[in-house]
């Protein structure tokens, strides 16, 4: 009934597609961490109209579905004569979508820095940039790590949507394989297991990062 030999024979195909999924997640996460910081700083510290505009744009991206955004960007850009390679488009879209999540995390973290710490850097006359870089941001960032971890794992699990714009990631490749061979049960079970393994690996990794970065009590 369950054709294990088939699966073993096609495992390399699935694993290389897994590589694409991971690559997209890593690049997307890198983009969203940078974009999120910019968005957060603009929303918190820019002049009112600019901060407000950034907020409204970020909210629009955050509350609407990634799949619609993928289609929108993929079909709208060429309409105005702008064609980017699909892979780049994919990373830009998913990175931007999750960048709006990251900006919420940064904002909450920055707001949670105690007033007393701001007072302390002023009282010690530490230059503004150095204060942010060496004192304020580090204590805000460490508590954010679990939230970014959740973000990354959510991105990993949502990256299969990019298969609709021909990205050869895990689920798209798997579905194609299933179509061609009619081995639906085997393929989709394998996809599920691969995701389970990836997310457990990920939670081991984040737990390790949390332990390493924990401030001793």
């Amino acid at each position, binding site marked *: 009934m369950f054709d294990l030999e088939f699966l073993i024979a096609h495992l390399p195909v699935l694993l290389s597609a897994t590589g694409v999924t991971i690559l997209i997640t890593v690049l997307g996460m890198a983009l969203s961490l940078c974009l999120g910081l910019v968005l957060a700083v603009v929303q918190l510290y820019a002049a009112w109209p600019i901060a407000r505009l950034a907020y409204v744009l970020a*909210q629009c991206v955050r509350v609407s*579905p990634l799949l619609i955004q993928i289609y929108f960007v993929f079909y709208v850009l060429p*309409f105005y004569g702008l064609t980017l390679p699909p892979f780049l488009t994919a990373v830009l879209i998913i990175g931007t979508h999750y960048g709006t999540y990251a900006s919420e995390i940064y904002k909450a973290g920055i707001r949670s820095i105690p007033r007393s710490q701001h007072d302390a850097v002023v009282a010690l006359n530490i230059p503004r940039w150095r204060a942010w870089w060496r004192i304020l941001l580090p204590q805000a960032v460490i508590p954010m790590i679990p939230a970014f971890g959740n973000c990354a794992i959510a991105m990993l699990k949502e990256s299969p949507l990019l298969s609709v714009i021909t990205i050869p990631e895990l*689920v798209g490749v798997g579905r194609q394989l299933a179509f061609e061979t009619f081995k639906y*049960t085997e393929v989709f079970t394998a*996809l599920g297991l691969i*995701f389970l393994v990836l997310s457990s690996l990920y939670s081991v990794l984040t737990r390790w990062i949390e332990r390493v970065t924990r401030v001793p009590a």
Partner: protein
Amino acid sequence: MNQTMSVLDIVVFVLPGLAATFSILGSAVIVGLALAILAGLGSLSSQRLVRVLCLTYIEVFRGTSFLVQLFYFYYVLPLLGVSLAPFWVGTLALGLNAGSYGAELTRGALLAVASNQRDAIIALNIPRVRAFYRIILPQAAARMILPMGNLLLEMMKSTPLLALVSIADLLYRGQMLIALNGQAPIVYGVLMVIYIAFGWPLARGVALLDACVTRRWGGAHV
């Protein structure tokens, strides 16, 4: 249909999809909420079997991609002899997925409140059952407003995936229209606006409700 369909025409055309989207979302919310409460409580049960079953459900559905789950319901279940109507494919896939996230939230909130209030409950000698529904449950519910609201938003944002398994939701109707008139940018733009029109007030409403409870109870979130 001609090349110059107005925005209003587009909205009218995709409207039946809106009904499909929201009827599936509504029934999935009921399924998901029931599962969240049952599996959340079950994961804290003193019965080993119940606990293991609930934790396994939570881990499996949280650990895999929603798209894979949806494809499983759509492609694999019929091979195993279970053929579901599209409405039920959507409802069950979405409900089971959200239920696992909701169960984890329920579990976390109950554990956190129980540990915060443990000393007072023991010192006042309040019986277990009473302590659970009068002290722990209300505070856990308050804590869950924001994450559950976010989960609802995520559920809504997942509904367009149903179009990938031929359920005639908003996105599906939109793509039918694009096949007819080729106006991809404006149709996808209209869809975006429709989702924002529902998602934004939902996000704001949940935040306001949470702020309201926090103002009154304060410590409920500590």
